């Protein structure tokens, strides 16, 4: 047993709405550099769970600790300052600003210059913004208005923004939803590569099993608010309970995919 606390430790997370348990006693942990997928049917509590990790939502009970430090009850912006970056299922970017400006806002926040009234923002950390954009392959788009970008590019921009505060942990809510098949693979490869290089832990939810089985180091499965399985892609894939509630028994899903067909 290692003495150092894991990057992310979730213990007994519980939340109910109007008597219905959305999330019940969910516990798991995540190491630095590890890529963990959270899957499960719609309504299984993935979003609620996710929102409790990033501070949008407060658990009724349970703990979330980042490197041993409690984050429950903290606001999203405070959790971000502790080193948690995130991307949204439906991208949230600053549509009237350019791609570079989007990254610069995050850098300004990271550099605690938010109340700097007289500095020059267009020149603020321009090189770092450029570097982040290069990293996600958006270097050529820096001056484009964000509102004009294709959806896949917005997702990549979100990744660059999420990396601006040198996060220890990335929370990605359906990172490839709404993207073309090729883009999905590219984005997740990129994410995995960055995560491993910088030893960033990644937790993501996803419906595309290709993406999950190819990129996740480990998978946890949520159903009706409880964790029903945890393990490597191969273990989860062959878990009969997971097949029953999520992957399907063959009636509704292709056999090939059940075995995790590669892309």
């Amino acid at each position: 047993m290692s003495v150092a606390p894991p990057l992310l430790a979730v213990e007994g997370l519980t939340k109910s709405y109007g008597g219905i348990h959305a999330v019940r006693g969910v516990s798991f942990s995540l190491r630095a550099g590890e890529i963990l997928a959270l899957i499960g049917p719609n309504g299984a509590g993935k979003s609620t769970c996710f929102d409790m990790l990033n501070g949008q939502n407060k658990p009724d009970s349970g703990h979330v600790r980042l490197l041993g430090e409690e984050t429950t009850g903290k606001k999203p912006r405070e959790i971000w300052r502790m080193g948690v970056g995130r991307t949204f299922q439906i991208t949230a970017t600053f549509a009237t600003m350019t791609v570079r400006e989007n990254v610069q806002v995050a850098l300004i926040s990271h550099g605690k210059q938010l109340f700097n009234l007289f500095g020059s923002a267009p020149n603020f950390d321009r090189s770092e913004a450029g570097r982040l954009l290069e990293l996600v392959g958006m270097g050529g788009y820096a001056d484009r208005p964000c509102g004009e970008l294709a959806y896949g590019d917005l997702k990549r921009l979100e990744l660059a923004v999420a990396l601006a505060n040198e996060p220890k942990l990335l929370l990605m809510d359906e990172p490839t939803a709404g993207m073309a098949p090729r883009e999905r693979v590219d984005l997740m490869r990129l994410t995995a590569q960055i995560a491993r290089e910088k030893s960033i832990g990644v937790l993501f939810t996803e419906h595309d099993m290709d993406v999950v089985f190819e990129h996740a180091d480990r998978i946890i499965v949520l159903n009706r608010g409880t964790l029903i399985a945890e393990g490597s892609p191969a273990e989860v894939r062959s878990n009969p309970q997971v097949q029953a509630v999520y992957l399907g028994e063959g009636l509704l899903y292709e056999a090939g995919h059940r075995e995790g067909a590669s892309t």
Partner: protein
Amino acid sequence: MKLTVQDLNSHYGPAHILFDIGFEVGEGEVVALLGRNGAGKSTTFRSIVGLVAQRSGRIMFEGKDVSAKPTHEIVRDGLGYVPEERRIFTDLTVEENLEVGKQSKRPNAPHWTREKLFALFPNLGEMKNRPGGRMSGGEQQMLTIARTLMGNPSLVLLDEPSEGLSPKIVEQMVDAILTMKKEGVSIVVSEQNLHFARLISDRAYIIERGRICFGGTMAELDARPDIRDAHLSL
């Protein structure tokens, strides 16, 4: 033909979403529109019922061009629409939700009463006075279909009816759709799940990046695994 769509092009603001979409639905047929998230399935449906402002092309419903009509007139002509996100009225009870959908009888379409719908979806009959917001996802999906059927449509556009539902509920959905078909309702169903589509549809079209890239019977689709694997997930 019940419904013929020709050269349908749609835009959201500056973004061109649909490119020359064309497909047909025969009388009493169930046709699947397959494709991934964001491929353009929902936009196609929304364009057909006039919920997308910037669209062009011809949409012939029962021999009449409805492409210039406002949404409510298209629906009153007997073209029902069940949206993807269900969009039930959460503050209204089950009964009230059905009331909103109510339209007069139509000679060429089955007539649905509350009783008939409660027989089709028994769960709904047990919660007539429950507000829509306090129903489970599956119940909401049933309600949204029942609500559209209250308009006595002769054709229904069903947008991803199996989305986010447990397999058990999906099986009920299959039964309901087959019952609707038996009653004489033509159906276009958009789906990502090929297997679900296979259980209910006669023919299928595949849409990818706003373009129709395949059209044929389910057997023809099975004969083309290349197309199937390139454009469909799961």
